C-alpha cells in the first residue's frame, strides 16, 4: 500500500462545484415547496386505533412499525459487524478510577436506569420510547465502562448475544404471531398498546446493550484468564 497523495486542486474544485450545485438545488426546492399538510390528517384519523396517544410513537411502532423492525435489525447488524472485526480490547490504565468518577457513577447510574424506565413508559403519550430509553441505558453502561466496571461482565457471551438479539426477536415474533388473525404487524386493536409496550421493552434492553457494547468495540470473551484460542 503506498501513501495517498493529497487531493489535487482539480478534484477540490470539482467537489466544490458539485457541493455548491447540490446545495443550491436543494435550497431552491426548499424555497419553492408547495404548502402541504402531509399525512397529518391521515395519522390523526387513525390515532384511536393505534394503541398509543402520541402520533410519532403511533407512526413508529404501529403504522410504520415495519420500518422500525428493520431499523432495530440494522442496529443489531452494526453490533454483529463490529464484533466481527475483532478489535483489540482497550488497554486498562494501571491506576484505579478516580474518586470523582466513582462517586459520580454511584449517583448517576441508578438515576439513569430509573429515568430510562420512565422514558420507556412515557413514549406512549409524549416524546420518548424505546430508543430514547435505550440510549440512556447505554449512557449508563458507558459510564460504568469508563469506571472500569463491565456492566454485564458476569454474563456469558451467549447470554449477551441473546439479550442483544432480544429486540429483533420479540418484534419479529409479535409481527408473525398476529398474522394468525390478520396481516404482518396487524395488532388487534384492543391489544395494540400492550403489544407495543412489550416490543419497546425488549427493544430498550437490546438498544442499550448494543450501543454500550458498540462503545467498547471488542467482542465479549469467555471468562477471564481463559480467552478464546487463536
Amino acid at each position, binding site marked *: *500500500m503506498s501513501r495517498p497523495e493529497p487531493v489535487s486542486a482539480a478534484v477540490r474544485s470539482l467537489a466544490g462545484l458539485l457541493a455548491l450545485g*447540490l446545495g443550491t*438545488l*436543494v435550497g*431552491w*426546492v426548499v424555497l*419553492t*415547496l*408547495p404548502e*402541504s*399538510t*402531509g*399525512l397529518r390528517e*391521515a*395519522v390523526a384519523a*387513525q390515532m384511536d386505533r393505534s394503541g398509543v396517544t402520541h402520533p410519532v410513537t403511533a407512526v413508529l411502532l*404501529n*403504522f*410504520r*412499525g*415495519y*420500518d422500525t423492525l*428493520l*431499523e432495530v*435489525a*440494522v442496529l*443489531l*447488524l*452494526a453490533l*454483529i*459487524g463490529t*464484533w*466481527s*472485526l*475483532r478489535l483489540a480490547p482497550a488497554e486498562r490504565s494501571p491506576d484505579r478510577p478516580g474518586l470523582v468518577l466513582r462517586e459520580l457513577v454511584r449517583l448517576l447510574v441508578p438515576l439513569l436506569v430509573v429515568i430510562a424506565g420512565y422514558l420507556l413508559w412515557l413514549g406512549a403519550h409524549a416524546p420518548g420510547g424505546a430508543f430514547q430509553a435505550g440510549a440512556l441505558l447505554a449512557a449508563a453502561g458507558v459510564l460504568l465502562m469508563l469506571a472500569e466496571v463491565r456492566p454485564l461482565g458476569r454474563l456469558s*457471551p*451467549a447470554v449477551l*448475544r*441473546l439479550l442483544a*438479539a432480544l429486540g*429483533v*426477536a420479540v418484534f*419479529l415474533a409479535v*409481527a*408473525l404471531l398476529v*398474522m394468525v388473525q*390478520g*396481516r*404482518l*404487524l*396487524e*395488532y388487534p386493536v384492543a391489544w395494540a398498546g400492550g403489544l407495543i409496550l412489550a416490543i419497546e421493552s425488549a427493544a430498550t434492553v437490546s438498544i442499550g446493550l448494543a450501543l454500550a457494547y458498540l462503545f467498547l468495540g471488542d467482542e465479549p470473551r469467555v471468562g477471564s484468564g481463559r480467552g*478464546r*484460542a*487463536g
Partner: protein
Amino acid sequence: MSGLADLVVLPWVVAVPLAGAVLAFVLRRHASTVGQAVALASAVTGLALAFQVATAGAQRHAVGGWGAPLGIDLYADGLSALMVAMTSIVGLGVSVYGASYFVGTQGAAEHQRAYFWPLWLLLWTALNALFVTADVFNAYVTLELLGLSAVALVALAATPAALTGAMRYLLVGLLGSLLYLLGVGLLYAAAATLDVQQLAAAPLPAGAGAVAIGVITAGLVLKTALFPFHFWLPPAHASAPAPVSAVLSALVVKASFYLLMRFWFYVAPELALAAISQLLGLLGAVAVVWGGLRALTAERLKLVVAYSTVAQIGYLFLVFPLALGQADGFTGWGGAVLLVLAHATAKAAMFLSVGAILKAAAHDGVSGIDGTAQALPVTLFAFALAGVSLIGLPPTGGFVAKWLLLNAALATGQWWWALVLIAGSLLAAAYTFRVLAHAFTRLPGDPPPCRCARGLEWSALSLAVAALVLGFVASEVLELLRVGAPVTGPVLLERVR
C-alpha cells in the same frame, strides 16, 4: 391452484432469513447448520413467491393492515418476483459453498465461520426486503441494512486490502444512501406519500420532482458502480472472501439498479428526457469497454472477475435508452432483466470457482493457476461455462439477453449500442480465454493436490448450469416479467428502419 392466491407468502420472504440470522447469531456453535437450513428455507420461500406471482398475478400485502400512504405495503410484480427468485437460487448456491468454505473450529477460522452466517442471512433479508417493498423510505432502510452487512462481510477477510476496500465501500455506500434519502425526503415533501404506485400517480411539481429524482439517481448510480463511480468496486469485490465476492457482484449491485429501474420506469418516466437516457447509456457503454480492458490486463485473478462486473453493469444501463419512453420497450426491458439474472448466476459461479481454484493455486495472480485444470476439472468447467454466458454465446441466458438488447438497439434505430454489445462480448471472450489458457497449461510433473471439498466445486458448477438453463427457460421468464411491467410490446421486434 385457487388456494395459492390466498396463501400469504410475501412477509415470509423477509421473516425467514431474518429469524435465521438471529438464530445463527445467538447459537454461535451451530451457526453453520442453522445457516444452511435457513438458506434452504429462504430459497424455497422465495421461489414460492415467484411461482405465486406467475400463477396468481401481482401480490400486495399491507403491513399492519393500514395500507399506503399511512402504512407500508409489500408488493411483488414480475420484476420483484424474478429478483427474489434470483436471490433464492444464487443464495442457495453460495450457502452450500459457504458451508464448505468456512470450516474452522479454532481461532480466526472459527471466528469467520461464526460471523459469516448471521451477516450473510441479514444480507439476504435486506435483499428480499428491498425487492418486495413498495415504500421508498422502507427501501432506504433495506438499502442501509444491505450496505452495512456487505461491508462487514468484505472486512471478514481481515487482510489490509480487504479492510481498506471495505472502508472505501462503506463511505461511498453511505454517501449514496444519504443522497437517496435526500431525494426521498424531497419527494415526500412534494407529494405527501412514500408509496411507489401513489408517487407514480401523483403529479410531481416539475422542479422539485426533477431535483429529487436527480439526487436519487446520483446516489443509486454511486451504489451501482456505474462508470465513473466504479472505483470502489474492484478493490472491495476482489479482496473479499470468495462467497462474499459472489454475492456482491451477483446480487448486491443489482439491488440499487433495481431501485433505479423502479424510479425511472414507474415513478417518473415523464422526466426521462432523451438526453438523460442517452447519457446513462453512454456511461454504461464506457463501463463496458473500460471494464473489459481492465479485466484483460489485470494481474490478479479476482480482479479480472471484478472488472468483468464493472463491464457487465455497463450493459444494464442500456435499458434506459432502449426501453424508457419507447413504444414497444419490452424488448429492451426484457433483455436488461434477463441480463441481470444471467449475470447473477454466471458471475456468482465465476467467483465461486475462482475461490476454489485459489485454494489450490500458488498465488493469486492469473499465472498462479497454471496447471490447475488437471487438478480441478469440475471447477474449471464451471468457470468456462460461466464465461460462455458472460460472453453471450448460445444457448446460455447471457446470449438471449444480449440478443434481445441487440434487437432493441437495431429496431429503435440506435445502432451504436449494437457496436457496444459486440465490443463487450469480444472483450469478455478475450479475458475469459486468457484465464482458461493459463489454467490449461500443462505443468511438468504431477498436478498440485487440491484440498477443496466437493461442495465448493459442485455449487459453482450448479450456478453455471443455472446460467445455461436460463437460456432454455427464457420465454417463461419473460412471461413472468410481463406481470406489472411498465412497458409493453413483443419479445422480439421487427426491424423498423
